[in-house]
C-alpha cells in the first residue's frame, strides 16, 4: 500500500522534471538567431527572394519605409507561421505542447542525417528516432548486463580482500576506465579486432554490415562489401525498419535466422564493452566503498556473532545492504552512461539515436533532430531513474514501509 503511494509520488515527481527539461531546450532554441530557426523550419529561402530571411529589405516605398528599408514580407510571413511574433510565454506553451505530443519537427534535406540516409527525408523527427531507438536499446541492454555482471562481484571482492591483489586490480580497472575516453578505447578495439586480426575475425567487426554475414551463410562471401559505404542492411524490410518489433536481433529470430540474430549480437559486443567500461569504472569504487562501510556496521558483527559463516555474512547480510547503494549510484551515473552512445555509435558506425544526434549536429540547421534526440535520451534517463527508485524501495523496507 505505502509502496504504491511511493511509486505514484515518484511518477508525479517526473512531471516537473520533464517539463523543466523541455523548458531548458526551449530556452536554448529561442536563444538561437531567428533566421536560423526559419531556415531550419522552412528550408532555405527561395533564390528570388531579396535579402533572404533578413528582417528588413531595402525598398523605395516611402509610406512604410524608414530610412529606405521596409520589413521583409517573407520574414514577416514565416515568423508569423512559426509563431515567433507571439509573446514568449505563449511560445513556451506551444513548445511544451508540441514536445509532449512528440512533434519535434521534420528531418528535411538540410540535415546531414538525411543526406546520409536518403530514406528519412521529410519524416517527422519522432518517427525517425522511433526507427532508430531499438538499435540503441539493444546496445544499452547488452552493456547494462555487462556492467552489472562485472562491477558488483568485483567491487565486493575488492572490499572483502582489501588492499590485496584483487582490490588493486579492480582499482586499476576502475581508474583506467575513468581515464580512457570512449573514442580512444573504441579506436584501440577497432584496431585490435578489425585491422590487426584482419578478416579472420571480422565477425566481431561492428562496422561490417550484417547482411554479408547472412549472405555468407547463404553461400556467397563478398569480402569487399564489408567496407562499402552501404549503411542499411538490405535484409530488413522497407528500408531500415526491421519488422515486426524493430529490434534487429529479435526480428532475426522471428524470421527464423538464428545465425543472423547471433551475428547481430556479436557485432555489438565491442561497442557494448566500450560503453560499459566507463560506467563500470564509476560503479566499482562506489560498490567497494559502500561494501566497506556496511561491513563495519553493527549488524554484520551480530551476524558473525550468531555463527553465520563468513561467506553468508558477506553475500547475504552485507551484500544485500550494499546492493541498495549500488543501484542508487547506477541511477545517478545513468546520464553519463547514455552520454557515451553518440561517440560509440559513431566510432563503430552503428545506426542509432546517438549517431542521429551527431549527424544532426554536423548539419547546419537541423535543430529539430538535435533537440529531439536530446529529449529522447533525457526520457531514457528519467525512465531509468524511476525504475531504479522503485527497485530501491522494493529492496529496502525502510523506504517501502515509510
Amino acid at each position, binding site marked *: 500500500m505505502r509502496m504504491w503511494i511511493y511509486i505514484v509520488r515518484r511518477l508525479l515527481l517526473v512531471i516537473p522534471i520533464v517539463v523543466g527539461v523541455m523548458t531548458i531546450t526551449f530556452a536554448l532554441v529561442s536563444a538561437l538567431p531567428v533566421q536560423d530557426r526559419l531556415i531550419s523550419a522552412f528550408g532555405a529561402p527561395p533564390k528570388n527572394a531579396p535579402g533572404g530571411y533578413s528582417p528588413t529589405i531595402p525598398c523605395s516605398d516611402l509610406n512604410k519605409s524608414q530610412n529606405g528599408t521596409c520589413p521583409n514580407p517573407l520574414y514577416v510571413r514565416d515568423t508569423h507561421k512559426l509563431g515567433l511574433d507571439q509573446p514568449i510565454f505563449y511560445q513556451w506553451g506551444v513548445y511544451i505542447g508540441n514536445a509532449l505530443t512528440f512533434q519535434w519537427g521534420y528531418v528535411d534535406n538540410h540535415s546531414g542525417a538525411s543526406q546520409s540516409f536518403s530514406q528519412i527525408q521529410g519524416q517527422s523527427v519522432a518517427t525517425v528516432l522511433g526507427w532508430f531507438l531499438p538499435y540503441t536499446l539493444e546496445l544499452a541492454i547488452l552493456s547494462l548486463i555487462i556492467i552489472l555482471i562485472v562491477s558488483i562481484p568485483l567491487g565486493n571482492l575488492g572490499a572483502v*580482500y582489501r588492499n*590485496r591483489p584483487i582490490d588493486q586490480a579492480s582499482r586499476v580497472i576502475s581508474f583506467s576506465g575513468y581515464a580512457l575516453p570512449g573514442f580512444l578505447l573504441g579506436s584501440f578495439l577497432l584496431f585490435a579486432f578489425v585491422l590487426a586480426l584482419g578478416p579472420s575475425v571480422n565477425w566481431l567487426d561492428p562496422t561490417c554490415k550484417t547482411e554479408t554475414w547472412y549472405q555468407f551463410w547463404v553461400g556467397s562471401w563478398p569480402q569487399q562489401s564489408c567496407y562499402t559505404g552501404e549503411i542499411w542492411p538490405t535484409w530488413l524490410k522497407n528500408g531500415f525498419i526491421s519488422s515486426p518489433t524493430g529490434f534487429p536481433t529479435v526480428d532475426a529470430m522471428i524470421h527464423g535466422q538464428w545465425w543472423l540474430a547471433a551475428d547481430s549480437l556479436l557485432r555489438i559486443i565491442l561497442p557494448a564493452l566500450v560503453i560499459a567500461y566507463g560506467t563500470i569504472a564509476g560503479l566499482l569504487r562506489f560498490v567497494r566503498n559502500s561494501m566497506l562501510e556496511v561491513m*563495519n*556496521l*553493527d*549488524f554484520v*558483527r*551480530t*551476524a*558473525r*556473532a*550468531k*555463527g*553465520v*559463516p*563468513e561467506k553468508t555474512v558477506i553475500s547475504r*547480510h552485507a551484500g*544485500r*545492504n550494499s546492493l*541498495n547503494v549500488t543501484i542508487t549510484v547506477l541511477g545517478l551515473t545513468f546520464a553519463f552512461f547514455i552520454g557515451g552512445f553518440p561517440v560509440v555509435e559513431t566510432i563503430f558506425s552503428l545506426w542509432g539515436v546517438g549517431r542521429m544526434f551527431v549527424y544532426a549536429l554536423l548539419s547546419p540547421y537541423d535543430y529539430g533532430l538535435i533537440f529531439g534526440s536530446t529529449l529522447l535520451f533525457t526520457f531514457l534517463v528519467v525512465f531509468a531513474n524511476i525504475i531504479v527508485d522503485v527497485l530501491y524501495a522494493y*529492496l*529496502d*523496507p*525502510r523506504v517501502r*514501509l515509510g
Partner: protein
Amino acid sequence: MPAVAQPTVDRTNLPTVDVAAPSATQGGTLTEPAADAGHSPVVLDVRDLRTYFFTYDGVVRALDGVSFKVRRGETLGLVGETGCGKSVTAFSVVRLIPDPPGRVIGGKVLFRGTDLLWGLDSEARIKIDEKTGRAKVRRSFRRIKTALERMSAIRGRGISMIFQEPTQAMNPVFSVSDQLSEALLLHHGTSIVDELLNATPSGPQVRPALEALVDTARNGAPDTVRAAAAKVGQAMNSSTFGTQAFYLVSESDLGPEDMVRRLERVAHRLRLSRIERAYLRQRRRQMVVEDELHELYLSEMREGHINRRQRRVLRGRHARNRLRGFYYGIWGIRGRIQRPLRDETFWRSVQRLEEVSIANPVQIARGFPHELSGGMLQRVMITMALSVDPVILIADEPTTALDVTIQAQILELMRDLKRRIGTAILLITHDLAVIAEVADRVCVMYAGQIVETARARDLYQHPLHPYTQGLLSSIPNLERPDKKLSSIPGSVPDLIHPPVGCRFHPRCPYAMPICKEQRPPTTAEGDEHTVACFLYKGDVAVE
C-alpha cells in the same frame, strides 16, 4: 571429554524439549542453584589475554594481561570506565576484533578446555618501530581465514552475544523472523527439517483435535485454547502447526465449520510435494556436513593440529551438495519449494518470541527492525542469542541505550531467563548499579587490566582497590544526596603510553613510590576476592 560432548547433547535434545512446552519444563536439569555456583565447572577460562590496536598514533595496548573465569550458570560482571577494554575483552574472546587495526597478541581463551586462540602466534608477525612507536603487522591471510572458519563452530552455539545498540545491531533489510530463523536454522537445522519431514498433516486423530480446538476457542480461556492447540500439534506431530492454529483461531472470527475447514487447508500445506521433500533432504544433508565440519574444527582446536585430509573430504561433500543446491536454485520455483521451511522457521521464531513473553509475537516477527522500539529489539536480540541454547551469553552493555523503565524490564527478563535456562552470562557494563542487580561475581577493569575480582556482595561492602572505592563513592546516591560527590581526579590514561608500574597510580590517592616502578601482582584477599594493588599483601593468587 564430557565437557565437549555437552554442546552436541544440547543441540539434539533441547529443541524437542522446549518446543513442547515453552516455559514450564524449560531446562530444569540445567538450572544451577546459585549457592554452589562456586563449585560448578568453569566453562570459560581467559588467561593473560593481550589485544593491541595498531594505529597511526602508535600501538594501543587495549588489553594487557586480562585473566578471569566464568563458571557454568553464573553471571560474571565486567565493569569499568569507557576505554578500559571491557568490550575489547568480549570481542577478543569470540575473535570479532576488526583486523586491521586490532589483533589478539597473546594469551589463552579456554572454552571448555579448548583454546580458541590456538594457532594465533604463528599468524602475527609484528615489528614495532621504537622511534615512532608505530608497528608493521604482517598477516598470513590464509591462517586468519582458517581461524575464522574455526570460530564459526564456537560462535552462536558455544558463545553468543547481545550488543549495546539494538537498533544498529539488527539487519534493517530483513524481517525479525528472517533473522531469528537464520539463527535457528544454523544451529537446530537438522531437527527442524526432520520435524517438517515427519509431520503427518492428515490422520484419524487430526480432525477431532481440530474440532476440539475450535470449540474450546469459542468459549475458551486463552491457556485452555493453547493447550488444545498444542494437542493439535501433537496430533500432527508438528508443534509449529499447534502455534499457528492457536493464533488462527484466536485472531479470526469465523464460524466453527469454516474455521475447521480453514485449519485443514492450512494443515494441507504440510503435505509436501516430491520436489519439496527432495529439496528439504538436500538442505538436511548440507546441514549435516556443516555440523561435521564444526565438530572437526572443534577437535582440531582441541588436539592442536589441522586435520587436512578430513577437511578435504568434508569440503568436497559440502561443495557437491552446493552444486545439488544450485539445481534447486535453477529450478524456477525456488521460492515455492522453500515455502514449507520458511513457514516452519517463522512459527518457530514466533514460539521463541513467546518465551520472552512478548505480547503479540506474530506482528513482531513479521515486523522490520525500524518499526520496533529499542526495548522490543533488545528482547528480540536476547531471543536470537538464546534461541541457539548457548553455553555462554556475552551481554555487551545490554541496557545502556535504553530508558530506566525499559532497562528494568530487560534486567527482569535476563534474571528470569537465567533462572530458567541456566546459561552462564558475561555481563559487560559501565554501570555499577546494573551489575549489582544481576551479577554473582564482578571483575573491575581499569586501563586494560583487571584490578579487582570479587563476589558482588563483597565488592560493594568492602571494596579493596582504590579505583573501586573511588568508583563506588562517585556514584550519586539516592539515599544520601547531601554528601558532596567525591570524584577520581584525572581521566583514563591513553593506552599508547600507559603509566609505568600500576596504571592507576597517577590518579591514586594512596600512590606509593613502588607503584610507579612495577606492576602490582594479583593477590587473594579472602575467598573469591582478588585484587591487584600494593596496599594488600595477600598471597599471590594462582591464575
